[in-house]
């Protein structure tokens, strides 16, 4: 379960950090980054990659659980990768970040459907699909909001779930 915006539970010195990196948009870059994390025993909570404001650079958002010293190493080692053009740790207080989740639940009886629909609307979710047996909801928000929704609906029986991981940008002018 993600803890990016809730109190960490594991090692007391560990925190979840959000990193934002601009990387070359070419084959193998994601491999180099994830391989670095594996080789140096760094933790990845989530990683997202997609186009950025630059035509030939992608933006990678990585959330990681680590202590301060490991974070320092992680940033330096990422910075050493030749395909990583820029990397920064985002200050969570001055960062907007969102995750999207698709959650498919059992919803055979009308009561369940009504209840899930109500809960989804409280969470500003969208019903994306519905059939005789299931109902699929899209929830966007902070990871803890998604956790909360997931906890609420878990009794209905989650059939499938897909989360995108966090995307983030610092607030205001760069």
């Amino acid at each position, binding site marked *: 379960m993600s803890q990016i915006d809730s109190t960490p539970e594991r090692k007391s010195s560990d925190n979840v950090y959000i990193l934002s990196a601009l*990387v*070359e948009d070419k084959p193998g870059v994601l491999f180099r980054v994830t*391989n670095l994390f594996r080789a140096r025993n760094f933790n990845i909570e989530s990683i997202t990659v997609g186009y950025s404001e630059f035509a030939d650079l992608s933006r990678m958002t990585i959330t990681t659980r680590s202590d301060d010293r490991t974070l320092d*190493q992680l940033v330096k*080692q990422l*910075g*050493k990768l*030749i395909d*990583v*053009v820029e990397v920064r740790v985002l200050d969570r207080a001055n960062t907007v970040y969102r995750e999207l989740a698709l959650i498919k639940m059992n919803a055979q009886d009308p009561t369940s459907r009504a209840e899930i629909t109500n809960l989804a609307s409280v969470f500003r979710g969208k019903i994306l699909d519905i059939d005789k047996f299931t109902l699929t909801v899209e929830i966007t928000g902070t990871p803890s909001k998604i956790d909360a929704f997931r906890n609420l609906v878990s009794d209905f029986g989650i059939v499938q779930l897909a989360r995108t991981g966090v995307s983030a940008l610092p607030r205001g002018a760069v």
Partner: protein
Amino acid sequence: MKGAEALMRSLEKEGVDFVFGLPGGANLPIYDALVDAKIRHILVRHEQSAAHMADGYARIKRKAGVCFATSGPGATNLITGIATAYADSSPMVAVTGQVPLEMIGKDAFQETDIIGIANPCTKYTFQPRKATEIPETVKKGFYIAESGRPGPVLIDIPKDVQQDSQDIEFPDLIKVRGYNPTIECDLSTIGKAAELLLAAQRPIIMSGGGVILSGAFSELEVLAELLLTPVVTTFKGKGSFPENHPLAMGPIGMHGHAEANKIILEADCILAIGARFSDRSVGRFDEFGKGMSIIHMDIDPAEIGKNKSVDVAIVGDVKSSMKTMIKLLNKKMVKRSAENPWLRRRTELIDYYTESIKDYPRDLTARKVLKKLRQVLPSKAIVTTEVGQCQMWTSLHFDVISPGTFFSSTGLGTMGFGFPAAIGAKAAKQNVPVVDIAGDGSFNMSENSLAVSVLENLPVIVILLNNYMLGMVAQWQRTFYNRRYEGVHLHNCPDYAKIADAYGAQGIKVQSLLELDNAIRSALKSNVATVIDIPIDPEEDVYPFVAPGTGLKDMIVGS
């Protein structure tokens, strides 16, 4: 122009005079282009040796060594050599053939994902997809391999890209936007460091491999003499400072000099230059440097704080950083007296351990052999080692006088490295003697390079400390596993003098120090490689010893 020809022109433009390699199906076009290139090719008998030769060449020439291999097994055979270069920050450009583009991913014959395999042990990997990309790729490859903290780069060229004929342009300038090594350090950090050093009562310099890579030998000497600090080195830094200098203390570490391991614990301020605080050098990270201030000079920002938190970090080329510090100290310096208690302590420790560490009571021991070798060899001779006891005895008993004439596989600890690397070093500097201090276990791994040494007229000298034993493993089994030996006896096989003869080299067996003296002199005059087979006692241990997982203070001086 074909892609392969573009590769040759690009290598020539980089000033490449030697390549070490072995051809195969997927790099035939490269070898075809090599026929007309102004580059000397050294044919190896195993690709691993090609990488070690390129590495040895690089460490002496201080520019990237180049090796070639075909796809699949040729490329994977290079990997140990590439990883060795990576661990020791040695610049290298490895060029592998690959199956044609359209075959990639089809599990073709001799196809392997060498980019994926090489990624964790290279600075960067390239796979040009068009012949026109080759010149820029090579230029970037050399730039990345040689600049900043050096390291190996792999260029994997599909066969059809090698063969493709195109109008090819050669760029004069390249830019790698995600790669900007820091050369000049931040001046304020030098100021802070100088304050700490001047305030210290017992300052010490710990010099690492970065000093050798940067060629900052004279700067180190000037700085040490200005500060009047004892100088210890890491094992990789051995030979960054003349080991007969009145301030020299030799290498620290698992098998460091006892006096060096002792004095560094008594220091109150450590200036670590181009060193990475490896476990083999400093023992336990949490114990090392307690109560001392630590100043760390390194070109790689990621080394700062990796193993050891430091008080002042000076990021930049160590040569340039030391120059800046020397200037500042010259302005500020209150001249220290050479008659201070700290330098007296240095002498005291050296005297104490010289007296208390006894050699084995035999005519031929590793220590006597290496002292004899030092006596007979000119100081400009280049010396490398294999890995294990032979290597650690060299660390202890062979003084490097002329800076930059010693190297070894210190980071990865690759057995079989020394001999081919010595041949590479000989290619880089053909007018000086090159010696590989070997054990039989390691030499056995790459002895087929004798063919290369003889046929390519690159004679080197192998000092074979032969106990027919994987000696270091045996020592650990003796020490930590209650003498339960397993997998360490080599049972008097093979006869190394005969092996040397069989390759057309010179094999000499010696039984005494006098015979050894004669053999070394004969080897120095020989036109072919010489293997001097020296029997030593398989029970001879390397001491001092800092057991793994302990600190330098736990050093064991003898059995």
